[in-house]
């Protein structure tokens, strides 16, 4: 395409043969045929948070939080209060309860404050300034009606923004993420370690809330980048060098670990002279994001995406070069599509398909695998894996192109498509054009009816 554009006049520069899986313009399975750009942010948009079926909040480095209507793209509120980039965002309650009038949003910023907003009025309710360092993560335990902030220490707050208890400071390390474990336990990531805390709520025996460090799990060899809950019994962590560890939530023991994702790609014995220069990203093994659908863990590792089955404890499908650049976010949508977004500015839609058993090696994506450094030791291991584990294939069914910067995150709405946010300061709503057209028709006839009634009433 570009070559065609440049025409014959330019000396044809050798276009690098892309190794990344490509899909043409014809994407019959891609439902997103309508997009709407939402402008407002003046810096990188890092977070989008689901509020309810119609609303979401976006926040980023400009310190401003916007509340949007996902259906019309209207900006409902503009929450200004932070002077520095926003570092964490949480909606309280995270699941819409029966009383939507008390819908609050918590935002933490690197200006060392946390603000609680009322989402219905767009006003600031509480401003918390008693932090020594910026809060990196926020977690809400609805069961106990408290929320936790993680920075240089973990603090527990109630909904009236009163400090209940706090831990001691961590030395030269901050809590980067937290999840809730059963029995009022909390797993917090502090660099390479997972620290388990126990939260003791106010009761007849205790005089006050307490938080106690239970254990420190130091199995990872590098910084932990991702921490997710898989189900009631397990949680998982992924590290910078590509170690995935699956933990037992109750006794905090390692259930399984996988560390050789980048070699999961089997090294077919290709002629050694085919040397294709790889960009540094393609060697990267950092686990940027993990998500799970209770059966599988979806890992965004480097430029690739991997599906790890919990039962077989193996990688069942993967795309090593799913994107041109780092994959930043991955999730499986309720419609069974796997979506990944990347620093290359694109969002890709995948479908997990059963591999045709007869010809596993000739399937389209196997062509991609012939790259990488030959390594005999791991070669064998990979072969073993291939034989027994890779049972499915990730089929690219579409990509969404619109952002001109890295797509940080996406959010899926059942009726209103997908929302993506990006470093190019934009938020894009991706919608099913067919559905939208239908929706408009319905609205049109509703309006006609209203007008008729109005005319009749006159």
């Amino acid at each position, binding site marked *: 395409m570009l070559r065609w554009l440049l025409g014959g006049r330019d000396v044809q520069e050798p276009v690098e043969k892309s190794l990344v899986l490509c899909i043409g313009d014809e994407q019959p399975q891609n439902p997103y045929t309508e997009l709407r750009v939402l402008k407002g942010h003046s810096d990188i948009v890092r977070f989008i948070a689901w509020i309810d079926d119609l609303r979401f909040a976006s926040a980023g480095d400009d310190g401003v939080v916007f509340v949007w209507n996902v259906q019309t*793209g209207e900006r409902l509120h503009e929450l200004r209060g932070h002077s520095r980039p926003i570092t964490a965002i949480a909606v309280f309650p995270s699941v819409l309860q029966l009383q939507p009038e008390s819908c609050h949003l918590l935002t933490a910023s690197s200006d060392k404050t946390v603000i609680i907003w009322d989402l219905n009025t767009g006003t600031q309710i509480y401003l918390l300034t008693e932090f020594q360092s910026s809060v990196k993560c926020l977690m809400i335990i609805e069961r106990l009606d408290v929320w936790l902030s993680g920075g240089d220490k973990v603090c527990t707050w109630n909904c009236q923004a009163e400090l209940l208890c706090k831990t001691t400071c961590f030395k030269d390390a901050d809590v980067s993420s937290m999840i809730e474990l059963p029995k009022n336990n909390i797993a917090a990531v502090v660099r390479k370690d997972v620290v388990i805390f126990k939260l003791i709520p106010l009761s007849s025996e205790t005089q006050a809330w307490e938080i106690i460090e239970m254990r420190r799990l130091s199995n990872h060899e590098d910084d932990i980048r991702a921490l997710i809950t898989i189900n009631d019994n397990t949680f998982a962590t992924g590290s910078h060098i590509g170690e995935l560890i699956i933990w037992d939530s109750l006794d905090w023991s390692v259930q399984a670990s996988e560390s050789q994702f980048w070699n999961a790609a089997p090294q077919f014995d290709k002629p050694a002279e085919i040397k294709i220069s790889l960009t540094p990203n393609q060697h990267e093994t950092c686990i940027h994001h993990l998500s799970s659908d209770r059966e599988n863990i979806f890992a965004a590792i480097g430029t690739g995406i991997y599906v790890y089955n919990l039962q077989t404890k193996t990688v069942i499908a993967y795309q090593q070069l799913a994107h041109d650049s780092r994959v930043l976010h991955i999730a499986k949508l309720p419609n069974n599509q796997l979506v990944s977004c990347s620093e290359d500015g694109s969002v890709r839609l995948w479908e997990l398909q059963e591999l045709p058993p007869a010809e596993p090696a000739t399937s389209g994506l196997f062509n991609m695998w012939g790259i990488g450094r030959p390594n005999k030791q791991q070669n064998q291991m990979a072969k073993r894996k291939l034989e027994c584990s890779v049972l499915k294939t990730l089929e690219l069914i579409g990509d969404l192109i619109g952002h*001109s910067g890295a797509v940080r995150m996406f959010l899926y709405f059942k009726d209103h498509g997908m929302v993506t946010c990006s470093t190019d300061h*934009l938020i894009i709503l991706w919608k099913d054009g067919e559905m939208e057209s239908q929706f*408009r*028709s319905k609205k049109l006839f509703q309006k006609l009816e209203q007008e008729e009634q109005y005319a009749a009433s006159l």
Partner: protein
Amino acid sequence: MITAPDVVALTHEDDYEEQYRDDSMPPFQFQPENPWSKTATAKFEKDFILISEFSEQVGPQPLLTIPENARDNFDLNYFSLRIMSVDYQASFVGHPPGTSYPKLNFVEDSKVVLGDSKEGAFAYVHHLTLYDLEARGFVRPFCVAYISADENKIMQQFQELSDDFSKASECLKTGNRKAFATELEKKLQDLEYTRNVLHNETEIQKRSNDKGYYSSVAIEKANELANVEKCIIEHEDLLMQIRTYSHKKTKDAHYFSYEPEYGTEPSDTGLGHQSNESCDKINFSNSRSYTPKFTRAKSAKCFEKKLKTLEELCDSYFFNQTLEQLKQVEKFFRGDVCYLITSQIEKLLLQQQRLTSFLFEDTLFFDKERTEKQQRCDKPLPVFNILSPKDLEHPCLSNEAASFESYKSCVESVPIKLDQQVNEESYHGTVADSIPCKNPPGASDYLELEGKEKGSVSSGESIEVLGTEKSCPAPIFSKSDSQTNLQCQHPEIVRRKFVVTKRTNSEDSIEVLCTTESLIPEDFKATCPSAIYEEDNTLDNEEEKQLSTDLVQSDANLNHSNGFSKADFENNTIMLPVLSEPVDSPCCIGKESPNFTKSVSTFVTEEYNDGVVNVPPQRSKTIDQIFHSDFPQQDDRNGLYGADDQVLSTYEKKYSDVPGTGETVQIPVDEYLDNMSYISASLCSDRTPSPALPNCPIKRLSGKHKKQSGRNSLWFIRQYSFAQQAIFSLLTGRMLVIVGEQEGKVKKLVNALSTFVPNCGSDSDSIKQWVTFPLHINHLQTWKLIGLQRIASPLGTSILHSLNRYSRYISILDCDNKTLRCPQYKGLLITRLADHRTQIKRGSTYYMHVHNMLTQLCSQAFLYTFCHHLHLPVDERETEESVTCRRVNFLKHHLGLMNDDSKIVQYFADLIKMRYLHEPAKGVNPVLRFNYTSSSVFKI
């Protein structure tokens, strides 16, 4: 600017182009092209407006025509005689029976249609009377006539003509009333002064004479004084009448003052710039600065003096306003009657089509209409209001059955302008009870006769006016007293006045004259609400007309980036210095240009024959020549443009196989044209455009530009075999990017394709002629057709990369390589729309062909959008699939749309839906709709 060194002007008219030079207006816009036109017998070619007067000195005489030199061999004097001879006895002179004072007649204008076989002319004649203190009976009969060779046109357009002319006449009369009032004031001052002088003389006489009897000189003096007194009363009465009238009138018409917005006239109409109050002040100061003269108080009627010109009569501000209005009227009614009527019908129909017409019609027409109407409401017509606003509640004369109280109140508020001198002089001599009502000199413009009227009404001291000795020492008293008497001497008198007026009207206007419109006596009109309503109606129509006139005239600058509209242009051209040739500038665009084209082409051919291909400055030279030859400017532009197109297209044909040179030549010419129009516009731009003209640039508009864009489109579909694919992209809302190195070439293509871009309904402009930066996703949402610069630079590369990135949303037409990358079109509709072997030869015809088909598509889209069962299930059991199936069937079988054609209708339908639902909401970007389809590359 004009030194385009690499311009090569060369062409030889090929047969086709010669035969169908498309530089004339659409066939019906000018009469000579209409084979059925009856102009054969007429001695003139175009309609014009004639203002003539029945002068009391020389009889009927033509004053001016609009356009100024439109008459050819037409005998204006003869025709003036004809049209003035049907005028009614315009006014009643002097003292009507039963009153002792002269009475002004406020008569409605009469409207007559007459024909003259000798001249082959038919005319709508609008008679009006203006007041002149020096004229016989204070009136000067005038008429404004619209003269056309087509009787049918006059008859068909009678109502419109009548409305327009009434408005113009109203403007004249308003100015006249103002001027008349000023004149009266001056006259009054003269008289007051005279009376004082006479009075003093009489006193001297009296004092010097103690013999007990009056000398003949003294008696003479006393008589003279009495005469002056009477004169004063008469004039005050007149002044009061004229003021009351204008007050009444303005109240009827719901306008109060005129705005300084209209103050764009030359400064000699200084009065016109002021708002009402300041105007009064100026008036007052004017009259104060006016030194009264001693007049021989004979009578107000004098015949010796040179009569005032129309401009003097009407206050030059109003006079110019009227001329402006009449020029607009003339422009509006240009062309054949069928053309006028169709365009009127079209406008009416379009207004009913608001749901779909936004797609391809000029959205501005509707939006502008609305805003303009508002503006009009905010800024009412220029009306000089002689009374101050607080007097507007004045119930006097509008209510015959007024009680004594109402008379009282009316008397209270009668404004009398007393000038300082008189005031001061007479101060000493006034009766004591009148003192409290005197304002300190100069403190107020008006002297209110508060507290005084009681005495005068009851005492009825009007006898004093007759000039007995008693009245002499108290001039001011008698003056104000007489004023009161005039007002409310007794109710009977006032009533009698009314009766008289009615009678005058009924006798003179209605019965004597066979006017086509019934005349409503002014006094009836004032009290009759329906009359008021009528007035409003007229006003509205007028506004609409004005609007549409604007529209017709204004020019979309599709080709020219500068914001000058053609309307400015034409308007200004009229004011240009005298032309060297007797060319009636505003109406001969079509006629004049062939002449011009010829000159260019011959010149060009010469160049070509000489084999000089790269002699650059020739073209600019021609233009310079033209400039100096004082052609009407818009003719230049028009003609040049037409010529250029031909030059270019032939040139292209000639040199299409020589890539480099052909392109380098073409651009400067196009650019040059832009400059040209800019220059020619700026030449006249020191004149501010008339307030009636739109100042905003207009995206696409009628007249010349329809033709222009039609011609470009025609050129495009003939030249580019893949035109259909490109048009398909546009009609389905896929952005079309025209990439090219040369701005002119790209812009020409953009212009050619702009006809096919549906309006998305939002305010944003969906066409960008020349973009020089990388595209962004935002742009894709709003822009639908753009020209993009291709340059060999880092920026250029990033532009291309942005194109590459968004290639799935856009179609790209490479103007340099003549290739197109877009989804393939499979259908029939566009084949008909843009057949490259089309037999259509004229740009305007093709434009109409395209619009015809697009309108058809719009109506299909409308049907599709608003068919309930196509989008909603008929009952609950029905599935979504069956509705979809029904929809597909409808498109296929009912609308007969195959394959991709249905996509066009679906896209239109979505646009209609969004517009109906007012999407996107304010401040929200529009959606970008697209399909995931593969593109292919097309070459010529």
